[in-house]
Every structure is written in structure tokens, then in C-alpha cells.
């Protein structure tokens, strides 16, 4: 059984218009493996993560099933409270928004450890120092007494990761963990996350719009668009040959160092649909170069075969290679 099983997850928001951010998503994450969800802004990927751990905004509602280690996380009364900060660790995009400004970071780390259960404050602080060293923060002991604003952006993200890892979770949810960082720091954090998941035997559910991050970390990839999963595949197979036109477009849009100078950037024409609008057919159809009349009228279902799946009437490579 997979560590995390998501079936038919749907997330709606109340408001002047009813907005559906996540539309019947099926995903699974195996133990010690890394699944990366790739998508543009507004595709619903962040809301997907938040809904699994019960951190949606007050006007958001999640339906469907999210099973973590066999335990259902969706339902009345916040059942996810039991796994927050224990089985599931969470790293947010904006590290400075993850740490309480008026508490020292040593305190915040120790807190996370104590909340997970059973250790004394003394032991928690010792563990906090060890964890800071593990996330490659130099002079960990000195930094225990620091306040978040006294650290640089990259260091804060390391601290945030350390805080998420204090309870030794089985899976780490990471919502665009490197987007707010400088390029050089991004590479370090990605490498760090990869090493940590190996060291700690931890699975990862990673959300990003950056294919570079994906290639460094992911075992499996799911492509999300307008609230739907359009394609999921094992990572190496995905990069070798994506089957959905949108996935192909995403890969093609990444400029290559080998391109001759003056090459135009390839982009996907058009813009994603506004959240809340529903189309009768395939959501990607307005921007798809391969679109046929059938695509406009009929929404392709997500068809999975083994570890791969696709929602398209006319995928590239109809047959398996």
C-alpha cells in the first residue's frame, strides 16, 4: 500500500463565485520516493498540498479521500491534526513567513520536537542543534539563539526545513521550497532535500513550477493544469518522452544551452483558464496544437496504466514504446 493515497480529491472555495481549485485528483506516493507535481501558477497545486493536511482557508472545502498510512485525513473535526507535525512535515515557499518573528529559532525547533511527543525540553534543544547541523547550517549552536530576521533567506529556509524534520516525518510536503531563493542557493537546497530524504528514508511530495528542481529530485512526476492531473509518469520516462501535449510544451519551453544564439523561446500560446470557469471539454484544448473537435466536446478521463496515467484523447505516442 502506498504511503499516501489521494483519490478523487476536490477542493472548492466559497466566494462571490464558487471556485474549484482541485478537480478529482488521484495521486499516490510510495514510501521513500519523491513525487513532484508540476504546474503553472493557479493550477491548484498548492491548495492540493494544503487540503491534505487540513490547512485550507476558512472558505475552502475538500472532498474525496486522502489516506496517509491507511488513515483517512479528510472529514469533519480536523482528523489531519494528528499527523501535522508528526507523520507529515511541511515546508512553505516563503521561509520568512514560516518562522515566528519574535521567537528564537532554537525555541521554535524545540517546540516542534516537543509537540511531536515525548521528549523533554532539554533533549529537544539538543536535537534542534543536531537538526540544524544536518541541514548544513554552519555554527548551529550559535544560531539557536538567533531570531529569524537575523538570518539570510537561504539560511531561513534551511531552518524551516529543519523545523519540519524535527519529528522525523515519513513524508515531507514541500510547496515551491526554492522559488523565493537566489539561483545558487536554490541548487544547494535541492541537493539538501535529496540528501535528507535518502538519509532519513523519507518520502517527498514536492510542488513546483520549475522543471530544473524536478529533474534533480523526483522519482515520479505529475503534471497539473487548471485543477486536473493531465499526466503522471515515472521521471526518466517523462523526460525522455512526455505523452501529453501540455507536458511536451513545458519541456520544449525550457531553453537549452545548446540552442544557437538568437533562437526564439518556445512558449505555449494562450493563458490558463480563469479559476472557477468550467469548460465542457478538455481544459487544455484552447491552447493545444493537436486539438480536435472531440477535445472541445468531451473531457478526457484520466486513464492510468501501472505507474503512468494520462488525460488526453490524442496523446503523443499512442502506444507504449
Amino acid at each position, binding site marked *: 500500500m502506498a504511503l499516501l493515497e489521494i483519490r478523487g480529491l476536490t477542493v472548492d472555495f466559497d466566494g462571490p463565485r464558487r471556485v474549484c481549485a482541485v478537480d478529482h485528483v488521484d495521486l499516490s506516493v510510495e514510501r521513500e520516493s519523491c513525487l513532484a507535481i508540476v504546474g503553472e501558477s493557479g493550477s491548484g497545486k498548492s491548495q492540493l498540498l494544503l487540503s491534505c493536511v487540513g*490547512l485550507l482557508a476558512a472558505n475552502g472545502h475538500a472532498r474525496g479521500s486522502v489516506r496517509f498510512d491507511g488513515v483517512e485525513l479528510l472529514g469533519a473535526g480536523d482528523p489531519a491534526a494528528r499527523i501535522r507535525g508528526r507523520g507529515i512535515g511541511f515546508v512553505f515557499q516563503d521561509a520568512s513567513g*514560516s*518562522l515566528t518573528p*519574535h521567537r528564537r529559532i532554537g525555541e521554535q525547533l524545540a*517546540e516542534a520536537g516537543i*509537540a*511531536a511527543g515525548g521528549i523533554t525540553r532539554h533533549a529537544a534543544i539538543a536535537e534542534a542543534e543536531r537538526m540544524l547541523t544536518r541541514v548544513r547550517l554552519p555554527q548551529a549552536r550559535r544560531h539557536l539563539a538567533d*531570531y529569524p530576521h*537575523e538570518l539570510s533567506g537561504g539560511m531561513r529556509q534551511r531552518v524551516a526545513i529543519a523545523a*519540519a524534520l524535527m519529528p522525523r516525518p515519513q513524508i515531507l510536503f514541500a510547496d515551491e521550497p526554492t522559488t523565493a531563493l537566489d539561483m545558487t542557493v536554490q541548487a544547494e537546497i535541492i541537493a539538501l532535500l535529496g540528501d535528507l530524504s535518502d538519509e532519513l528514508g523519507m518520502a517527498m511530495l514536492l510542488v513546483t513550477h520549475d522543471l530544473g528542481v524536478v529533474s534533480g529530485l523526483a522519482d515520479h512526476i505529475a503534471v497539473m493544469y487548471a485543477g486536473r492531473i493531465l499526466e503522471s509518469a515515472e521521471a526518466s520516462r517523462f523526460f525522455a518522452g512526455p505523452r501529453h501535449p501540455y507536458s511536451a510544451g513545458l519541456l520544449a519551453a525550457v531553453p537549452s544551452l545548446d540552442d544557437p544564439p538568437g533562437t526564439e523561446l518556445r512558449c505555449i500560446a494562450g493563458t490558463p483558464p480563469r479559476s472557477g470557469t468550467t469548460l465542457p471539454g478538455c481544459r487544455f484544448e484552447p491552447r493545444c496544437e493537436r486539438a480536435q473537435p472531440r477535445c472541445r466536446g468531451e473531457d478526457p478521463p484520466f486513464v492510468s496504466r501501472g505507474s503512468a496515467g494520462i488525460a488526453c484523447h490524442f496523446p503523443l505516442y499512442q502506444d507504449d514504446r
Partner: protein
Amino acid sequence: MLAYIARRLLGAIPTLAVIVTLSFAMTRLAPGGPFDEEQALPPEIRANLEVAYGLDQPVTVQFGRYLAGLLHGDFGPSYKFRDFTVTELISSGLPVSLAIGAAAILLAIAVGIPAGIFAALRQDRIADRVMMALAVAGISVPVFVIAPFLALVFGIWLHWLPVAGWAPGRPGDLVLPVVTLALPVIAYLARLTRGSLLEVMRAPWIRAARARGLPQHRILLVHALPAALLPVVSYLGPAVAAVLTGSLVVETIFGLPGMGRHLVQGALNRDYTLVMGMVIVYATMMIALNLAADLIYAWLDPRIRRERRP
């Protein structure tokens, strides 16, 4: 942090200087003199009075003598209460005013802040709406309207509390004045605390704390509340100013022998030195307490407290 304290202290000095100078300048440069209202003063007697009070000297000399007096705590003689110096009048009233003012602020903090927290936790439910409606009333209705009404209801109709005068050893006399002074501050603090707490609870780092599995009560007490109270500390300066100004009305209506009543009397009598001296004292108190509030704020906010670190 020490640098911050030093800077703020130095900054307060020019303000104090301006207050003293302005007060003095206004009273000396006014048309006519303090004895114009006295009818039937023969010119020789008036001239003698002026010499006695040093009013025949050039303005700069008068200012110098006044400043020298200030440094000794001497505010000069009262022009109207001939047997008293201003210093005596101030010191007779100061303890009473301080007692009432301090009690009012403490009451306001003890009631207003918890009320605001309570309202925030029950956001948009009945308790919250009722409390906020009352708060709007408390902020908008001025002290000189609240005071007579409270006196009317609790003193005259219900006979629960005395409405005038104060004899030492009868603390019941002080209940109405203190409550009246405190009410507008309670209302403002409740609204401010509620708004601030609600805003802090929406902060991303609160959500992150929940994601780390921290229990809700700990998040509220340790993570949200300290941040939410910062704007409240900022408000303490204006709150003190409001209480000091309000005390003028409260002491007058309830007949309390505090500084405020002397100031009002002095103003009605056009007693220059008394008014000037009292304004300086009030202003100094405000500046000092504002400074204290700023220092508390700086101490609480680690970003200011630890300015040195890179």
C-alpha cells in the same frame, strides 16, 4: 537597544524645550497683562504688583529666571491664589490625579485587552458583534457625556456610588471617576486588540506553526498574542494622553482635588503662571510616558532590540 534608548531620550529634550518656551512665550507675548481683569486697581499698586512678580523686566530676563526656577521645581507664584505658589498647588493635586489616572489605565488594560481577545476568538458571533458595538459607543461618546450619565444612573438613581468629593479613606468615591476615565480606553483597547489579533492569526507563520503540529492554545498564547500586542503597546502613549485630558473633566464633575481641577480654575481665572506650570507638568508626563511606551515596544520587538546584529 541602548543606542535606541539614548536616541529617544535625546529626542525628547527638544520637545520639552519647545513646550516650555512656547508656554512661556504665549503668556508673555499676549496682549495686556495678567492683572488687566482686576478692577479698581490703582496704577501704583498695579505697578508694585508688576515689580513684585518681576513683570517689569525684559522678556528674556523673565524667561531666564523662569527656567532657573523650573530647575528647582519652582513654577513661580500663582497670580490669582495670592497665598500659594504654583508648585504648592501642583503638588497638592498631583497625587490625586496620578492615583486616578494610573488606576484608570490599569483598569483599562485589565478589562480592554482580554475583552478584545475574547471578541477575536468569537469572531462574528453574537458576543463579538455586541462587544464591538459597545466599543464603538465607548469610543465615540465623550468623557463629559459619559461622566454625568454614569453619575446619574449609578449615583442618583441607584444610589450605589457617591458622586462628588473625595475624602481620603473612602475609596468608593473614586470608583465612578476611575471607571469614567477608563471607559473610552477600554473600548479602544478592545477594538484594537481584537483587530490586531485577527490580523496576526492570518499571518503565514501562524499557518506554518499549525503545520508543525503545535496545539492551538500554544499558538495563540506564545506565537500570536505577543505579536498582536505590539500595536496595543504603541497605543499606550495616546491612551495616557487621553486619560490626562479626560481627568480635567472627571475631576471637575466629581469634585476631586486633583491637578485637573486646579488647571480648569486657573484657566477660568486667567492665572497665567498656574496654567503655564500645569501645562508643563502635564506635557512632561505625557512625553515621559510616551517614551516609556516606546521603550517597552522596542524591548518587545526583537527586530529593534537586536539592532546591532547584521
